[in-house]
């Protein structure tokens, strides 16, 4: 149990010899200049993480989520001590940890590929850290068996990792981490090597485990479902920057920018080119021939930010979009029956739109080519700046 504080953390991977020369190679006059497409590649090297500020409370479950290459694993590895921190400060329980060796940070980590010692039995894998700390044998035995009991792997203690299934190996990896009751538990995409069914089961196991061992968790995933179900708070990252920090509900209901809006939620949010109209203290969005007034709390935030009429990107989640008699006209391209709902893939004036229709509300079936009108409520519309991609309410 510990508080973790990351202050302005930055990670730069300097160029190795040769790369820099290649980069600085003088181009011939006729060679067109290539535009720098990746902001993370700078003169000092490849910037994996920057301006990372986060306060993790004691016993909090924080999930870092983002696409591949966004810097989430690097951040976790910096906390673990497996990567050097290029700049900034890391505190665990108020102590500066930048130059402290991993073994002295009192943290444990569960790796994506389990990282179980192949030549050791499950028991030895779990006991290894305790043996290195010269813990008495009977205490090691007690702790290993307790952890095995929690994770339901007692019957596999004498087996070697290669004789275990993926799920069992994952349990052993977690067991190895919890056996020494670390202050902070780090998990780097621990479920990504498992199949969908096992992943769901293990997710539930991790929730139960968290209640039992009651420590601070930092969990990295690219799976937003894991992030939403496990985290007390979610940190959404892109290109090494934090995009938003908030509870699952906050990031789902109030995405800070277009990236977060598109990343969180399945199916992804629908985006439209729209006009935001300010009429006194009222705000409307005009899209596809319909005009929708925004909810009063949204209007209050826009007013506070002194937002004026402007072209915007309008975002509405598929589950917040309703089929109606009147609204934006579209044609059905695909209707996916999901059981409790139908996912309608529509084409609205060349734009792909997904609408979720609960089967209980359906009056008939949808066929390809059917004309459908859809609309949305002002409470669930998100308006993003065309220039900055930021949510204008923020």
């Amino acid at each position, binding site marked *: 149990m510990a508080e973790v504080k990351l202050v302005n953390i930055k990670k730069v991977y300097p160029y190795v010899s040769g790369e820099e020369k290649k980069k600085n190679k003088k181009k011939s006059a006729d060679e067109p200049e290539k535009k720098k497409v990746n902001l993370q590649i700078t003169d000092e090297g490849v910037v994996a993480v920057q301006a990372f500020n986060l306060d993790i409370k004691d016993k909090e479950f924080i999930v870092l989520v983002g696409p591949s290459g966004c810097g989430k694993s690097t951040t976790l590895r910096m906390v673990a001590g497996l990567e050097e921190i290029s700049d900034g400060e890391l505190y665990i329980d108020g102590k500066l940890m930048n130059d402290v060796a991993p*073994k002295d940070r009192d943290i444990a980590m569960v790796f994506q590929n389990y990282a179980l010692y192949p030549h050791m039995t499950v028991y030895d894998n779990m006991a290894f850290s305790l043996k290195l700390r010269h813990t008495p044998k009977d205490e090691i035995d007690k702790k290993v068996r307790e952890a095995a009991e929690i994770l339901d792997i007692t019957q596999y203690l004498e087996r070697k990792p290669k004789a275990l299934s993926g799920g069992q190996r994952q349990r052993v990896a977690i067991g190895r981490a919890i056996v020494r009751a670390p202050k902070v538990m780090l998990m780097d995409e621990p479920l990504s090597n498992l199949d969908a069914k096992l992943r769901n089961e293990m997710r539930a196991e991790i929730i139960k485990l968290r209640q039992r061992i009651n420590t601070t968790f930092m969990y990295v995933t690219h799976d937003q479902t894991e992030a939403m179900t496990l985290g007390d708070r979610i940190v959404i990252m892109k290109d090494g920057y934090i995009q938003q920090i908030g509870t699952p509900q906050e990031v789902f209901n109030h995405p800070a920018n277009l990236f977060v809006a598109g990343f969180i939620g399945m199916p992804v949010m629908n985006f439209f080119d729209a006009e935001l109209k300010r009429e006194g203290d009222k705000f409307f969005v005009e899209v596809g021939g319909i005009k929708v007034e925004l909810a009063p709390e949204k209007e209050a935030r826009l007013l506070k930010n002194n937002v004026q009429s402007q072209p915007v990107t309008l975002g509405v989640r598929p589950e917040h979009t309703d089929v109606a008699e009147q609204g934006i006209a579209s044609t059905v391209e695909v209707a996916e029956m999901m059981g409790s709902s139908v996912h309608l893939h529509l084409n609205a004036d060349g734009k792909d739109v997904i609408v979720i229709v609960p089967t209980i509300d359906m009056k008939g079936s949808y066929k390809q080519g059917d004309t459908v009108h859809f609309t949305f409520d002002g409470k669930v519309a998100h308006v993003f700046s065309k220039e900055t991609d930021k949510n204008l309410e923020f």
Partner: protein
Amino acid sequence: MQKKSSLMKKLKKYWPFYFLALPGLIYFFINNYIPMGGLILAFEKYTVSGGIFGSKKIGFQNFKFLFSNADAWIMTRNTLLYNIVFILLGLVISILTAYFLHELKSNMSRKFYQTVILFPSLLSIIIVSYLANALLAGDTGFINNHILLPLGLEPISFYSEKKWWPFILVFVHFWQMTGTSCILYLANMSAIDPSLYEAASMDGATRWQSFFNITIPCLVPTIITLTILAVGKIFNSDFGLFYQVPMNSGAIIDVTQTIDTYVYRGLMNTANLGMSAAACFYQSVVGFCLVMITNSMVRRISSENAMF
């Protein structure tokens, strides 16, 4: 019949693979199997006129000659002891060298040191023997002229004092062979999942604890395979090392004579092909038996690490 048809089926199905394997199989047949017929020489008193198959059969006479000789004990002792030292010390030196190279963070340094360590193995043993001579020669050698004499010490006549040669031969062997023997271990170390070391460091292991608890156990299959193969050659010796490096000096023959040099010298002096064939046959049979025994011992202790 069923077996035959299934073999035909396999040949038909996988003929491109068998076709690809064909040059290798032909090579093995010509180079490794046909010469086995020559073993018959071990049981003959070979004459040029009689040829391999027409010479007089003398049973185990050649073997008797080989072992009744006064040098039999010396050459067997030398061959065995040098090989035991090479196997045991070689294991430690190769693994440690590979580990140090593996631990180097800079690619440039790693390449540099690897090249430096590997370079001697590219040198012909003749060149190595003259390099050794340049160091050890009584009158002109570097050690006598530039180290011992300036220090006021008596020069050493290396080529006539046998006490130095076990050390010199072991040193020259490792100086020349460490580069190649550490490559396999280095490749194996590179294949060890780095997350195992990360997990160990999170568990509280120091570098040496990681070395003994992760690196060595992960190398065990390679160590066992290479050791079994080396044990199989325990009655063979590096002819160049034991014949060329001591410059065929008679004064030190007690510590440089091995089965191979003995056979060569015998062949040069008496042209007795039968005795040479007997010695080789003896080396092969003993080597084969040792491989089988070592492997069965490994299988009893840890079946997953046995070769077969």
